[in-house]
């Protein structure tokens, strides 16, 4: 098990991951958790329960919308899908994240050279 990370500090990251997870089509919470686990190689583990307040918040803010449907094993499940606003937000956040990480890594590289 990788070390536990306080989920609150990851709030922004978590939102981004959720948006990314539902970008491919409607998914229920369990599937989103699975997606996050798989795509981060378990290195970004958070309490799975924290996913739900985040989902509800995104729903409230109109970035995702929810509907009840039937899951692969025939159970009633709540599916989340990206709204147009969510799509736009995901794109914006993605660019910002890339710019940010790029800037940080450049800084780190440059810093090393100067030392």
């Amino acid at each position, binding site marked *: 098990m990788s070390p536990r990370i306080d989920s609150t500090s990851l709030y922004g990251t978590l939102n981004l991951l959720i948006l990314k997870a539902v970008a491919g089509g409607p998914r229920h919470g*369990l599937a989103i958790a699975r997606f996050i686990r798989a795509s981060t190689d378990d290195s970004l583990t958070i309490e799975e*329960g924290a996913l*739900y307040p985040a989902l509800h918040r995104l*729903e409230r803010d109109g970035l995702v919308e929810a509907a*009840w449907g039937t*899951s692969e094993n025939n159970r009633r*499940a*709540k599916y989340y899908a990206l709204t147009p606003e969510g799509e736009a937000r995901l794109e914006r956040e993605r660019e910002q994240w890339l710019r940010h990480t790029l800037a940080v890594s450049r800084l780190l590289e440059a810093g090393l050279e100067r030392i």
Partner: protein
Amino acid sequence: MRKGMRERITRVVRPRALVAEVDEELDFHLRGRVDELMEEGWSEEDARAEALRSFGDPERYRVQCRAIAHDRIVRERRGEVMGNVWQDVRFAVRGFRRNPGFALVAVMTLALGIGATTAVFTVAKNVILDPLPFEEPEDLVMVWEQNTAQSIPRDNPSPPNYTDWRYQNRTFVDLAAMRDGSMTLTDGEQPEVVQVAYLSPNTFEVLGVDARRGRVFTEAEEADADSPALAVISDGLWRRRYGGDPATIGRTVRLNEFVLEVAGVMPPSFTVPRRDIDIWVPSDHENPNHHRQTRNLRVIGRLAAGVTPAAAKSDLDVLQRRIAESFPEANEGWSVLVVPVMDEVVGAGTRTVFLLLLGAVAFVLLIVSANVANLLLGRSSARRTEMSVRAALGASRRRMVSQLLTESLVLGLAGALLGVGIAWAGVRLLVSFDPRGLPRLEEVSVEGTSLLFALGVSLLTALVFGMAPAMHAVRSSVARALKGGSRGRGAGSERTRSALVMAEVAVSLVLLVGAGLLLRSLAALGSVEPGFDTEGVTVARVSLGSADYPQNEDRVVYFEDMLRRLREIPGVRAAGLTSTLPMDPAGIDFDLPYLAEGHPARSEGELPQTDYRIASPGYFEAVGMDVVRGRTFTDLDRAETRRVLVINEVFADQLWPGEDPLGKTVTIYYVENTPWEVVGVVADTRHRGLGVDAPAQMFVPMAQAEMLFTYMHFAVQSVGPVAPVVEAMRRAGVEVDSKYPLYALSTLEAKVAATTQRDRFVATLLGAFALLALTLAAVGIHGVVAHQVACRTREIGLRMALGANRGALLRHVLGRTMLMAGAGVVLGAGAAALATRTVRGLLFSVSPLDPVTFLGVGLLLMGVACLAAVVPALRAAHMDPAGALRSD
């Protein structure tokens, strides 16, 4: 698709459902995770433990989720409502643009109603509600003297009495006194007669007011012998004479023989003791040389904390009795009258006027609401199909009602917007009438409260006129309406419309009766014989300086010189002067005690009193007072000759009924208590107003007056145009003594007109409102009848096809209208009989139940109703039966 699902969720979710949904969602996750782990080979027990461990505390997340979901639903609902409102507004505006005629009529009608109401409210609020511009004005009272034994309801206090009150009372913070008059202002430029108020030096402190520019004078300053004599000037004088120059403050001016320094400029709202005061100067009313009989002050007091006017009265009455013990001849029987300043400024008459006008505009507003409701009802029956289709498509009743009410609100707000403009113009108009006797019109403007008022009125009326159509829309069943098509008659709606028209007729009748009574009262006043000529009489004032004209003889010389000049003016037939002109409140007007021949003397303090006037030879002729017996004054009545008196008929009848008054004597108690011989009797004159009976009067000749005033009124009777006479009089004034020009040149006709100005103001406004009401009622009747005819096209066609003749049809349609109007007239007459009691105080020789007015107005309304109905009725009668039958 997604959208639809989401909407369904939103609608379905209730607090309990919300809890269940969150539970189900989290449950699904945990169970799914356990299944996954078991598929990976975990035992059920371990899988359960692992799922819970990696999930965290379910309870915590459950609570968080519920809170957020609840938050979401609240936001969504709010957004939905806002969206609906916006949609309704857009829908309403679109509808009005499709039907601009309807919208225009409705908005204009509303704007008129709201505008008139707001204008009257603005003025009324300013006059009767707003506090006076003094510090804590509710503590300020006016103090008068009164003598019930001599039936003198109120008189001005005398300076020594005021002084005693000021230093011996226990109920006042302080008292101030003032007197007004006029003086000549000379400071380099053209001399000008100005209105002066002589204030006790503490007046500004008692009132708690300050100058707008510069400062006011204080009592301490006046007591200091080294400080210069100060004057405070009015905003009007400052602008008029000094062009609003800030350097006016500190400037030295001459008032008659006094030199004063201008200390400050008062704001226009400071109208103490009169509106037209130009200069306020400090004056020593506490000087022991003043007489106790000279009742010439206005006294304002500031009550100590918690003291009522009644307590102040009993306090001062104790002092009055003590003064009467020391000075019985001057003070016997005199008590005080304490009146809150607000009641003094805004008398009962003014309050009645404004309550009356407010009531009248409220009635107009009712008619406006009824008319717009009628318009909307007419429109809603035309839109019946649209409404039923919407209902059939699933629009809820609530949504439909809210949409109809939104339409009303949009109309109401548009009306309010336009109405505020009308109110603004209306207030200007009201103030420009500048009715004498209506105080506090200086700074009226439409702002703050008035705008809120307009908004409130528009919302309220929108609710009132929007309710009826909205209710009808809800009540009409979908199926029935759809079946009925656009011709759906809606008997309920029809009844409502008839009732509205009836109410309009009734309300119009009340207003018309009110206006009619006032007009008849004015006509009655106009036909009153005042006892003097109003046409061709020009009047003017003069106010001499007592330093330049110290003795009676000096004044007589000036006056006689002046009269000679006036008589030389071409066209002038007679000229004279008097201490007080009839119908002019600006004179020196007071009563003196007397004792008449043949009437035994009672005790000293109980002498009767009556109007005392000074008149010159030619005065009676100049104002056209008829001589009933004997003669008037001549130039032969000199100071050294026998003292002669002219009295009026009332006085003669009162003293010596059935006897010849000539040669009898009257002893007047004034400076010297000497007997005067009656040499003439003149006809009675209405002195205080056309509606007020003539008072008993006695006149003494100018040359014999014991104290000849410096403030006198000239009257000149002339033939031909007045303007050149006025100009010549002005010139004559400058020629005789340029320091004391004649001023306030006017005509007696204007003075008489001024006394009925308030009544004319009320009658004009009420008449305008009544006319507006009548027009609106006519429009309403026309609309209803036209609509009835349109709805019954097929029925009428059928009747005609079956042989009904046009005359019968016309009678049928008109008959219904007259029935409606007749019911309104009867209803209105009942209401008017109750309502007109409020105007009783404003009526002169007309009963509030005057049958002529009631009958005339009733007939007028029936006639107007008939006219309004006749066009649509004729249209019905001339319909082509075949076309009518085919119509849908």
